[in-house]
């Protein structure tokens, strides 16, 4: 029976250093939510708090309505999958997988049946007698998964489970994990620093930074409509141009950036534009043109991306990165105009610029 997880206003410290600041997060029944961020953002700390290896300074953690905050780790009944697998080196695969069942008093044929069924599901049925030392990375990860799943916990948590595997295996395994999670319907929290991994398998993603959640949304929303400058940069909006509106004409808005650069934007295409805003553009969102409209730029270094050329541009509004078509490579020092492309840009409200 899976349950919902509720993290309420958690503050946590390591010694005197504050690592989590008033963090709140609700994970619905059966949902897979990823905690995504760079090292030190607090994602692993959050996981350890829920697991019971760290005590919060204040706040509450509830699973299925039951308060876990002061409960010792071994009574929380949460399935954990560790980054380094944490397989017991002195126990066989079968005994590793059956470890949790043994602690719950499940023994004999009942235990064997459940262990074998789980080994079948992760495709390791013939490996029951092997020791972890004789397994490959991917196999070890499957044992770790089986071990956490077999106890049928109401919550599963993954601590960067794939970072020690090579790239191809990572892609294959994340699909397997998602399929297993979906089939079981278990509420899951998934910690990773890999954006593609988080976006590909999660129902929602929480982008974390410095102990706080910067935005919690579906991957599509995060990618297309970042809520603030941090998230915008995180998901690839390289150019952030602060602007002020100087004139409005129906749907059209004329705004000015630093250096007197003016752009006219259609709210129909870009969405509602407040009086002060930041225009966030991906490199693909600034087209390099030789026309008369757009941001005047002097082209610097040109790099070949395979699908386009990328130019480092010097403009009165600052340094910008823009992409241009393969059909018309331009030289260093050439003059050009950068035109914002609506589909690859987004408008950020002023107070969200961190």
């Amino acid at each position, binding site marked *: 029976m899976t349950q919902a997880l509720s993290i309420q206003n958690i503050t946590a410290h390591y010694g005197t250093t504050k690592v989590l600041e008033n963090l709140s997060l609700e994970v619905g029944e059966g949902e897979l939510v990823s905690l995504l961020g760079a090292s030190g953002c607090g994602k692993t700390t959050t996981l350890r708090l829920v*697991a*019971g*290896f760290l005590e919060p300074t204040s706040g509450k953690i509830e699973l299925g309505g039951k308060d876990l905050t002061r409960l*010792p*780790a*071994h*009574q*929380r*009944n*949460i*399935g*954990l999958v*560790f*980054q*380094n697998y*944490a*397989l*017991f*080196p*002195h126990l066989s695969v079968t005994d590793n997988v059956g*470890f*949790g069942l043994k*602690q*719950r008093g499940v023994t004999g044929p009942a235990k064997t049946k459940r262990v074998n069924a789980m080994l079948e599901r992760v495709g390791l049925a013939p490996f029951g007698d092997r*020791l*972890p*030392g004789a397994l490959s990375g991917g196999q070890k990860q499957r044992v770790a998964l089986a*071990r956490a799943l077999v*106890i049928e916990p109401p919550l599963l948590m993954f601590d960067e489970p794939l970072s020690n595997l090579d790239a191809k295996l990572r892609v294959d395994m994340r699909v397997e994990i998602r399929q297993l999670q979906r089939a079981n319907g278990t509420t899951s929290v998934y910690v990773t620093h890999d954006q593609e991994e988080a976006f590909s398998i999660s129902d929602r993603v929480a982008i974390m930074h410095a102990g706080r959640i910067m935005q919690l949304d579906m991957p599509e929303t995060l990618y297309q409509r970042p809520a603030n400058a941090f998230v915008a940069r995180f998901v690839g909006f390289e150019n952030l141009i602060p602007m002020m509106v100087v004139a409005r004409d129906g749907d059209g808005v004329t705004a000015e950036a630093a250096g007197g650069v003016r752009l006219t934007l259609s709210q129909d295409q870009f969405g509602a534009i407040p009086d002060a805003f930041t225009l966030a553009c991906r490199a693909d969102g600034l087209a390099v043109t030789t026309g008369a409209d757009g941001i005047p730029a002097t082209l610097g270094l040109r790099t070949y991306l395979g699908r386009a050329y990328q130019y480092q541009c010097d403009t009165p509004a600052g340094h910008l990165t823009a992409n241009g078509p393969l059909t018309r490579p331009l030289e260093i020092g050439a003059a050009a105009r950068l035109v914002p492309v609506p589909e690859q840009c987004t408008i950020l409200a002023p107070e969200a610029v961190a």
Partner: protein
Amino acid sequence: MKRFAGWTLSTPATLLVLVFLILPVLATIVTTFATTAGPFAPYLSFFGSGFRRTVLWRTIQISLATTAISVVIGFLTAYVVSRSPGWLKSILIIAAVFPLLTGVVVRSFAWLIILGKNGILNSALLSTGLINEPLSMLYTQGAVITAMVYLFVPLMVLTLVGVLEAIPDDLLQASASLGAKPTATFMQVILPLAVPGLIVGAVLVFTGSFTAYATPQLLGGEAQMVMGTLMYQQAMVTFDWVSASTIAAIMVVITIAIVLLMTRVARRLNPMAV
């Protein structure tokens, strides 16, 4: 020169060990097989002598007792030390290392003061009225074992702290997350993984006890003769160098046999291949 650099650099040390350790010890052992009375005569006379058999048996008993006690005390202490907060752990390790660095004479001598007829233990027992006359505690097997345990516990503690810290934290976390209470984690995860290191430590203590001299000499004297003190007596008092060589040979054989056997067992039991 580069191809043989390794050899050139290690030759002086190799020569030192070869000429002044291996050869002399081999020579000692060989002389026991080359006596005028026949190749195995010294051994037959050793094992034929009731007194010498008693000495050997006593040495084994003392060594086993010392090992057992040191292992238990050492392991429990190491467990607590390894789980102590950083600042306390440093202090405890210093406290464990300090006795190790003071010599065997100092550490054995301390027990003479404690266990003597006028010693602290007797004074304490007399003053609390538990006994009426001072107990004669020196020159007993108990005294020797106590002093030997005192000698070896620091070694066990330090060895086992290393062994326990080699167990990755995430294993203990995994165990807890799967529902194992702290005692269950200890019995099912920590203890099995510590066994190889425990064996190595036990071997060190056993062979050290078996070949000890100063401690049994001070606390056991002639009443509690062991292989070490017997060997000294044969060599430097009775000047029976064949007998002393025989004891030496027995010591070497037992020591090396146990070390080899236990190293093999420990390696086979060690799943972490540390």
